[in-house]
């Protein structure tokens, strides 16, 4: 049974990959970005229905997906395709939302195709910005967290809040609930995000998804998966950036020859290819390890993958712009967009922070 399910999901992931690679050109994507920049919000009429149709939610969270180690691999195919294609649709946030609901054992709280976005504190393993107070027949929630990736398009906000006793609770809060202020905006890389503030929001008990220390496992797993899937997005973007830069070196002529004939640039292009392959290999390995859940070995590899991907992203982002010259800064050419996407990644997953985290992990032989 698993095998056929696995096949279905692999086909879905490949479908997304093909969709982005062949049918959705840079101009079309960039029109979406510009439309959002004029304040119209994300245009969900173009790519989004196709992604839904292909089943990105199911990939993350159909009833076997959580048990099936391969499902993370399928999600990574989608994430990588989105990064390489510079797509701004919140496919990754949507997958993570569906995934967390499933990991918490309550996939049913989300209606079919409902876009749920996970609070940044959960995705980054930080203390929540929200607090919960029990009241008659429900909860009263207050607090704020900024920069929810995909939050601009969220229908449901998945957020955690501790009650007065310090017990964590996971809520699935409708974004249009009275008292919820969701301030949407665009990031420099074109993707949408939002700041979310709750001002004494009274919720009915149905919004409580799960509670108690058992949540910690789900949170740790979603943090691990989110980090690695964002790294996959970056790997995709690096692949796109390297292909573009290589083409530039072959086709742009100055001083009577292709600029790729200058050894100063050749060596740097070689280094760009090198750091991409290193990141890709380690992320893939970390992905496999993460399928077993977040054990110590998995986190070690994840730290390595994130540090490597952040460093590679920065190098490739900067070199891509530099070697394109003025073209590297323009809106109508993908180079600058890759810079923005990759820089966002490595700022959200800073190499130094993950290096320190790695250093804090117990040595492997003592863990277990």
């Amino acid at each position, binding site marked *: 049974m698993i095998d056929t399910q696995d096949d279905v999901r692999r086909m879905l992931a490949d479908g997304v990959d093909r969709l982005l690679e062949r049918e959705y050109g840079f101009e079309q994507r960039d029109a979406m970005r510009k439309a959002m*920049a004029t304040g119209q919000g994300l245009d969900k009429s173009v790519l989004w229905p196709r992604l839904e149709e292909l089943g990105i939610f199911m990939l993350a969270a159909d009833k076997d997906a959580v048990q099936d180690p391969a499902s993370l691999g399928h999600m990574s195919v989608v994430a990588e395709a989105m990064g390489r294609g510079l797509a701004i649709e919140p496919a990754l946030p949507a997958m993570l939302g569906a995934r967390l609901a499933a990991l918490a054992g309550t996939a049913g709280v989300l209606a079919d195709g409902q876009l749920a976005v996970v609070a*940044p504190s959960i995705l980054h393993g930080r203390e929540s910005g929200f607090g919960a107070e029990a009241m008659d027949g429900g909860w009263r929630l207050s607090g704020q967290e*900024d*920069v929810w990736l995909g939050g601009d398009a969220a229908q449901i906000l998945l957020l955690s809040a501790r009650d007065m006793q310090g017990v964590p609770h996971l809520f699935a809060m409708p974004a249009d609930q009275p008292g919820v202020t969701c301030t949407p*905006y*665009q*990031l*420099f*890389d074109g993707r949408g*995000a939002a700041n979310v503030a709750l001002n004494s929001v009274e919720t009915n008990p149905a919004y409580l998804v799960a509670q108690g220390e058992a949540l910690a496992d789900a949170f740790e797993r979603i943090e691990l998966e989110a980090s690695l899937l964002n790294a996959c997005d970056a790997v995709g973007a690096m692949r796109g950036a390297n292909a573009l830069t290589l083409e530039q070196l072959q086709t742009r*002529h*100055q*001083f*009577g*020859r292709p600029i790729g004939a*200058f050894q*100063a*640039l050749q060596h740097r292009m070689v280094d760009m290819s090198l750091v991409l392959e290193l990141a890709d290999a380690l992320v893939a390995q970390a992905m496999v390890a993460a399928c077993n859940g977040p054990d110590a070995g998995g986190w070690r590899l994840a730290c390595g993958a994130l540090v490597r991907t952040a460093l590679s992203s920065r190098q490739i982002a*900067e070199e891509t*712009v*530099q070697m394109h*010259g*003025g073209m*590297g*800064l*323009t*809106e*109508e050419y993908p180079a*600058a*967009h890759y*810079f*923005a996407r990759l*820089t*966002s990644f490595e*700022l*959200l997953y*800073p190499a*130094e*922070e993950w290096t*320190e985290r790695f250093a804090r992990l117990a040595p492997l032989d003592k863990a277990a």
Partner: protein
Amino acid sequence: MRDFVHSNLDQDVRRRVICAQPVSLEEKRVWHATLARQGWAAPHWPVEWGGTGWSPAKNYLFVETLAEEGAPELSPFGLQLLAPVLIRYGTEQQKRSYLPKILSGEHRWCQGFSEPGAGSDLASLKTRAVLDGDQWVINGQKMWTTVAHAADMMFCLVRTDPDAPRPQMGISMLLIDMKNTPGVDVRPIMLLNGERTTNEVYFDNARVPAANLVGEVNEGWNYTRVVLGNERLNIARVGLCKRQLRHLEQVVGRSGLSGEGRKRIRRHIAGVALDLMSVEALSLRMLGRYQLGDAPGFEANFLKLKGAELQQRLTRLLVEATGPSALRLGADGEDSNLLKNHFDTRVVSIYGGSSEVQRNIVAKGMLGLTKPASTAVKGARA
């Protein structure tokens, strides 16, 4: 100088300059007029044209001090790049009609050098000018022409002798009225920062008076070297870096960073501050030699390289110190637009002679490392 900035510059403009938030062309024009009234719009010019007669050291300090105090930078095209060429090679008529309006800020100038096929290899430019009676007829295309859309005039490099033995020898410099010349078409190039700062300019049989030639025909390349050499004393932008360092300290002080994050950023800030010391020392040494009559030499190439790097590190640290909100576009407020601002500084290692071109010049000119094929540096920007 410091007091002058504090008491004459609009407080909100100054705040935005310091916080790396946008300042409009109009606001810059107002500041230009303020400086002009004080007699400080172009202190480095000769006194007879409205300069101050200050020593090079004082001019240097003036530029760095204004930047350090948060004054917006004036457009360099007329004041810094063209004027010294006109003063040296222009006709009396040209000086009288252009210099006063550059000084007052009444005329905005743009620089038409780069073309689609001529970037680093500037000498390969193709825009053609042919003398027809008492007019030059211009055909071709310029690219990356900053503020051409808002400019009154352009100083432009054109090819006047396509058969010259070396490409550098067939180039002339023309002055073009951007507002009243038929056949000049300015089209925007949008950068990812969402702003229209730069343009493509097309010439289709555009005619300019023969009197608009600067200096001699086919001598344009030599004047170009003057243009490109003109900003060299302040090329590392030490004052700007100091201001950014100061601002960074404040941002880190009030940021929501964890203790560890703050320590990490402070170490990076210290790293830039230390680097800046050596850059300033080299700038001052170059200035000292200049006072004794030496033209800025390879120090200027080093300082362009290192200065670009410092600019980029500083704007990036501001993003890191601010946190994820720095990725945000739009909203006024001091946290937004900072990644965009960092992106804007990527250009510093591309224009005015890219970092690669600077290295080529030093490799060949200073170190005498000959290239396997000999053309790579000759045509390059100084």
